């Protein structure tokens, strides 16, 4: 962070021309490194994009390359009750899971921001722990306990489980936006006669809203995309979109999944990227 690449590349020989500077730079980036970077970048992005041409294929199997052009898989996605209901369930679960995660996660972040010491540090780690516990272990444990509590196959059970997974994202995002928060503002607000609740709504909330929104979005996406716990909590009457996609690959061999995949990738990308773009534009103007 102390030196910029431009300084390193051009600093000592900045007087010479651009091309010669690249040739004689003290510390150039070797071509093979750029090549590896390109290959890795393609490895990140390319495989997922393969579902897009496939979704317009006229073939009735998972074969590649696609043949012909057809919108039948999109038509199927929006007319087949199995796909439609699982999409509806996913949206419902994700909205409520994100709401719950955002409320409890924001409260926890605000609370932890005022606390110091070992116990507070432990609490923060504890609230983040679901990021690193293997999902399959949690899924199996949750499945057996939720069976006893009659929460499997219900929207409520899904919301609870997915909200818990979303809390760490809210916690991190809100904590980071609280980084520059001046506690004096709350004291000022209180001395002017505002109740703690009013202070929170009028002073804290506007200042941390970006963090709250970004946390809520990640909690939504986490739930919308979650498949392992969802596979265990499903019932014949209630399942989410990722579970239906899993069925399409394993049992039904239903090419509608290519349309579903394309829609999910495009929509979620928009949901994640648009706030970022809007945010940076607002900042730069």
């Amino acid at each position, binding site marked *: 962070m102390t030196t910029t690449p431009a300084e390193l590349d051009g600093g000592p020989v900045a007087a010479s021309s651009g091309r010669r500077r690249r040739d004689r730079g003290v510390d150039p980036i070797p071509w093979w490194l750029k090549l590896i970077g390109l290959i890795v970048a393609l490895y990140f992005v390319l495989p997922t994009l393969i579902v897009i041409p496939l979704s317009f294929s006229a073939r009735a199997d998972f074969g590649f390359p696609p043949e012909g052009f057809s919108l039948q898989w999109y038509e199927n996605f929006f007319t087949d009750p199995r796909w439609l209901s699982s999409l509806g369930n996913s949206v419902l679960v994700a909205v409520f899971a994100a709401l719950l995660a955002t409320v409890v996660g924001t409260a926890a972040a605000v609370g932890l921001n005022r606390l110091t010491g070992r116990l507070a540090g432990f609490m923060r780690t504890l609230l983040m722990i679901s990021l690193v516990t293997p999902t399959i272990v949690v899924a199996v444990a949750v499945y057996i306990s939720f069976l006893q509590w009659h929460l499997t196959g219900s929207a409520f059970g899904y919301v609870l489980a997915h909200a818990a997974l979303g809390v*760490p994202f809210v916690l991190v995002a809100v904590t980071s936006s609280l980084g520059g928060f001046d506690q004096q503002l709350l004291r000022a607000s209180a001395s002017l006669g505002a109740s703690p609740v009013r202070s929170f709504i009028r002073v804290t909330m506007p200042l941390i809203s970006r963090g709250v929104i970004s946390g809520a979005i990640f909690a939504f996406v986490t739930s919308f995309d979650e498949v392992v716990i969802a596979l265990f909590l499903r019932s014949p009457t209630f399942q989410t979109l990722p579970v239906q996609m899993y069925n399409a690959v394993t049992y039904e061999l239903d090419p509608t999944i290519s349309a579903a995949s394309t829609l999910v990738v495009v929509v979620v990308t928009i949901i994640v990227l648009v706030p970022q773009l809007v945010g940076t534009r607002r900042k730069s103007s």
Partner: protein
Amino acid sequence: MTTTERPRRTLRPGWLLLIPALALLAVVLLLPLFQSLLRSFGTPEFTLEHYSSLFTDGVTLTILLRTAATGVMVTVVTFVLGFPYAYLMTRVSPRMRGVLLVIVLVPFWTSVMARNFAWIIILQRGGPMESIFEFFGMHNVVFYGDVVGVTIAMSQVLLPFMVLPLYSSLGAIDRKLLLAARGLGSSPFIAFWKIYWPLSRGGVVSGLILVFTLSIGFYVTPALLGSPQQSLIAQLLATRTTQLLDFAGAGALGMLVLVVTLVLVGWANRFGGTISAVGVVPTPQTKGNS
């Protein structure tokens, strides 16, 4: 007033705000895991039989070793690809760095099922991967239903968890040290080995441990791209639970996986914060509190 005299006796409002989140965590995570722990010791009588049978039933140990081997392969692949990429990120212009960072974060929001479906298409018999090998004159190379295919797909998913900790540790290295070494007559390789590599070790160790740890718990990718004959630990856990209804055995196996994971994560945390490395995803963390 009296508040300065007894600040500790009343519960401060900060703690009250933690209660809802802790309650949610307790219901979804802590209580089910605790019940699972209890079951693994047998009810109603205490026994360690479920734990000892993990190592004696002949199946579990084989699958554990296979899972560890797959994890090592994935870790090596992600390191070999991730280190140059993270290094490149520290060298390019800020604009290009932003592009490379977004590319790393792509797997975080592209749907798990869409990605696994894509890998099925690529790796299946007659798919693009086989065609590429076909083009080079190698016939019948199909990775679908094989540990190799699982490794390729898992490495793609886990690569960000290698790149992000590496990037944060490589980015903190002062490259002037390398130039100084070169100026004093050392070869590029020696300069890298003696100066850059030791300074990057924190990020390397936490990246390696993080990827290996996460690979142990993978379920969907091996279930879809692997085969039942070469199943990994997560598949065994799922089968024991939903098909064999062996809740106690599944509990013991789950506890074993959980303990190994938490020990490894705790270890990685010493080398520069694994949890915060994952948490860096939504927004860069500005407050070094965790």
